[in-house]
């Protein structure tokens, strides 16, 4: 016999994400899900943001297959941080976030940043309860990534094009990347950054945007 089920496998994650989202709303904490390939510069972007946004109360959840290296780098900047090791898992899910939230005093936070496992594919389908999804792409990865990984870039609220200091060493056509992103998702916000110490570029625009959204969310809670 045939049994009709029609049940969404993602529902378990989505329900958990909705609970996380409600908690972030109650506490007035802006939450950011940072997605990008391994080596795109996610952790270095966070290091620079923590310096640039010194007056903003920021905590970080780090996701990696193994080690607490990223958490150590964030802790060295004085931010509250916890590390999730997925032991081979390719993405974070909402339940993993829910489990570590008691480690933070959400009442004393303006911004919670979740650095996802380095991966441009698997994290896309897993809502964590975030307000914003930021996809980071370094020019060293090649300019064709937005059209080759469309679902990920379409799911973004903003894209950061990073490592622009390496642009001249690549054959990436930056205007073409911007055009591809705008074709995938018209009006998509794009930031362009250099995060290497001493060569920073473009971070204040990203910081100002996050500040504005964090203040708006705090005001609504």
């Amino acid at each position: 016999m045939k049994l009709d089920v029609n049940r969404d496998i993602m529902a378990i994650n989505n329900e958990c994400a909705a609970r996380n989202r409600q908690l972030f709303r109650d506490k007035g904490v802006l939450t950011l899900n940072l997605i990008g390939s391994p080596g795109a510069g996610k952790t270095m972007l966070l290091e620079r943001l923590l310096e640039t946004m010194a007056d903003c109360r920021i905590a970080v959840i780090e996701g990696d297959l193994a080690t607490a290296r990223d958490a150590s780098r964030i802790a060295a900047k004085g931010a509250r941080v916890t590390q999730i090791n997925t032991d081979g898992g390719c993405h974070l899910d909402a339940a993993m976030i829910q489990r570590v939230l008691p480690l933070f005093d959400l009442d004393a936070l303006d911004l919670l940043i979740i650095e996802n496992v380095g991966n441009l594919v698997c994290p896309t389908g897993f809502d964590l309860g975030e307000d914003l999804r930021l996809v980071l792409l370094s020019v060293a990865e090649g300019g064709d990534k937005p059209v080759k990984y469309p679902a990920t870039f379409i799911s973004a609220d903003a894209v950061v094009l990073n490592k622009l200091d390496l642009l001249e060493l690549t054959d990436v056509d930056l205007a073409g990347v911007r055009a591809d992103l705008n074709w995938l998702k018209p009006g998509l916000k794009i930031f362009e950054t250099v995060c290497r110490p001493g060569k920073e570029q473009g971070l204040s625009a990203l910081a100002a945007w996050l500040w504005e959204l964090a203040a708006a969310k705090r005001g609504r809670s």
Partner: protein
Amino acid sequence: MHELSLMQGVLDTARKALAPYPVERVNQLTVSAGMLANLLPDAFDYAFLALSPGTMFEGARLIVEKRPLTACCQACGREYESGALPPCCPHCGSHEAEILTGSEVLLVNIDFD
């Protein structure tokens, strides 16, 4: 390889759905994956082969259908289905879209004896 955790979800959901029935053998599972779920059919098949042995699903057929996304056009306000990325409104041609569905992975039905 998020297909492994999705397949675990499919099998858990199927097991719960079948719980009220006396099941001799499961013949076929039909899954429908939204095009934003980034589900790779080959990896999904592999996950099924890895997780099904020794369970009631061993030897069953796995059918995976791709499901179009639904979007609301931000230019003309109409809702539509799209089987391609980026979504493009068939009524006015705009790419400006609010995605309504497309990340879901549905266990559609189970055929069993």
